[in-house]
């Protein structure tokens, strides 16, 4: 029995990789190649499209025309990631170090809202943030905010919406890295007369970095391409993000070349941003831990 297996042992890793590779080839590589080709098309739906490398101007035209939405996406995604981090870190810290026997329950509570559909949650936020809704209604009644104040259709609604929707993606990785910190290291810090804050800064925080790194990526990357929050909570021309533009180019204007070019610019932009970020935090953090 051992003989033949041993002979083909070299093939085992490839066999194990095959399903994943096949999946990626069919559902990622093939469409991506198609889309890349489409980004060099010119023409229209009824005239047909022609491929030409000289259509690289699709890229420059797309960037020039949608610069505003690109910048907005970076700013919104960046602020949302920061906000998510500011909420998640104390949350994860408390659960990891003070959770005690309620740890699992608390973790469950973090994830619980996400058992409902993403769309339903965003739509409920519209109800909560409504001009005369649960939140603003009483405030307006009490005269705390002016009658014409609104949250919906503002950048604030989109950013907080994104932050809310990605909260577990930030909280869980940070929790995992905090949870596995060896408590003896913290005790050692105290023994060496470090103030609690110093222990946090010199021991806890650096050890949590892999989780923070993973959490930021899991939040920032999808937030950059976010379509739903801007569509449902934004709903105003001045909060459109690049995802909305791509959707509209593809499905409303049938402008496949521009849509494809925008998608690749977005992809390239995210890759560059992640590379810079990984550099800043040190690439080891990418693979260690989480």
């Amino acid at each position: 029995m051992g003989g033949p297996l041993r002979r083909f042992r070299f093939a085992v890793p490839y066999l194990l990789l095959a399903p994943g590779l096949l999946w990626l080839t069919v559902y990622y590589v093939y469409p991506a190649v198609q889309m890349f080709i489409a980004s060099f098309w010119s023409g229209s739906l009824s005239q047909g499209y022609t491929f030409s490398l000289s259509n690289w101007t699709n890229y420059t035209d797309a960037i020039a025309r949608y610069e505003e939405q690109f910048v907005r996406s970076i700013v919104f995604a960046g602020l949302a990631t920061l906000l998510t981090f500011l909420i998640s870190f104390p949350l994860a810290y408390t659960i990891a170090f003070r959770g005690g026997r309620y740890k699992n329950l608390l973790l469950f509570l973090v994830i619980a809202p996400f058992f409902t559909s993403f769309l339903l949650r965003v739509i409920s936020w519209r109800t909560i943030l409504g001009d005369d809704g649960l939140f603003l209604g009483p405030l307006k009644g009490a005269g705390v905010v002016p009658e014409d104040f609104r949250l919906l259709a503002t950048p604030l609604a989109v950013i907080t919406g994104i932050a809310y929707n990605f909260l577990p993606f930030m909280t869980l990785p940070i929790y995992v890295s905090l949870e596995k910190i060896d408590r003896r290291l913290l005790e050692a810090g105290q023994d060496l007369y470090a103030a609690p804050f110093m222990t946090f800064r010199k021991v806890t925080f650096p050890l949590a970095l892999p989780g923070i790194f993973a959490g930021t990526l899991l939040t920032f990357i999808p937030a950059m391409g976010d379509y739903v929050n801007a569509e449902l909570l934004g709903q105003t021309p001045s909060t459109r993000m690049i995802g909305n533009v791509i959707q509209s180019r593809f499905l409303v204007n049938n402008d496949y070349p521009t849509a494809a070019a925008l998608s690749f610019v977005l992809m390239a932009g995210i890759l560059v941003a992640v590379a810079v970020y990984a550099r800043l935090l040190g690439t080891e953090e990418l693979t260690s831990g989480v």
Partner: protein
Amino acid sequence: MSQRDSFLDRRITRRTMLQGTALAGVGAFLAACGTPPAATPAPTTGPTTGPSETPAPSASAAPTEKPTPSAVLNFANWPLYIDQDEGTPPKSPTLEQFTAKYGTKVNYVEAVNDNDQFFGTIQPPLQAGQDTGWDLMVLTDWMAIRVIRLGWVETIDTANTPNFVANLQDVYKNQPWDPQTNLRAPWQSGMTGLGFDEAVTGALTTLKALWTDDARWKGRVWFLTEMRDTVGLALLEMGKKPEEVTEADATAAFAEIKKAVDAGIVRSFLGNDYKESLVKGDLVLGTAWSGDIIQAQLEKDTLRFAIPSEGGMIWTDNMLIPKGAQHKYTAELMIDWVYDPKIAAQIAAYVQYVSPVKGAKEAIAANSDPAVADLAKNPLMFPDDATLAELHIFKALTEAEETSFNDQFSTVMGN
């Protein structure tokens, strides 16, 4: 009221929701778009070629079909756009009766959630000269025009559709893009005008309100994402006719729309989901569809729909037989079936849009249920001649115009 609930569903599903999920299919869709342009079939039924009244051209297209009803009919329509009974799963009396009469099982699928998205699914086979799998599909007139322009429809053999010939309201006949009235059969129509919450805005009659900086509605106004509705009303506000829109008029209209956006009067550009915000009170004034407001009045009775003094828009969803349809004759029988005034009344009483069928009003008025009979008096469902005279149909755009207008409209909407 299950009927009311289903209408709520329809608003969400019909256009807005699926646009998002449709993105997932874009990769595969693009793959299909790579077919060489040479495969584009030459337009054979476009308005310029002037299809003849005789049934000859239709017979040559599909595999020769004997004039007997087929076993199945594949019918693609918008969600909740046909009468349904209270059963589980609900059945459509209209379709059940059709099956009883002709023995045809109707494979009725709510496949059209969005004009553009549905077009994406039929475009690859049609471009390759293949059958789409549908025998009958319902598209809004501008999309119907596009499909007709591409030569992707079968001519309806009007010899098989006497009810359609006799009962189609005259206003729909002899459109420039369907000169013989045999390329499409209207399903339902609706109006676009002013929708507002009278309790907040007071009674409104003029489109000028949409450009007026009034504290009662500033920042709580929406425009429809349907380019023809919003641009049509902007043109009317400017004293221009949507039937005769030129490139220069359109550019001026986009500038006019942008004015209202930049002034902070207009908050959003919305599809069907404007109704939800209107009922909740986030929005109080905008460009609205008549059937929506009739439905929304059940939830908020201060909502009003008004055809503006400058005029309103009328649009139509149309049944079309896609090129190469397998059961063309049966599709024609279905068209004829829904043009029977009794059947048309049955559908209209449920969906509450404007029926294009002569006699539907009388059939509704004769209904033994007074609540249904009263619908015959509703001017939004049965507009009289004076009302119809105030309504405009958007010009059939050339492809160049459509591309240019959509592009400019996108820019105004922030895309």
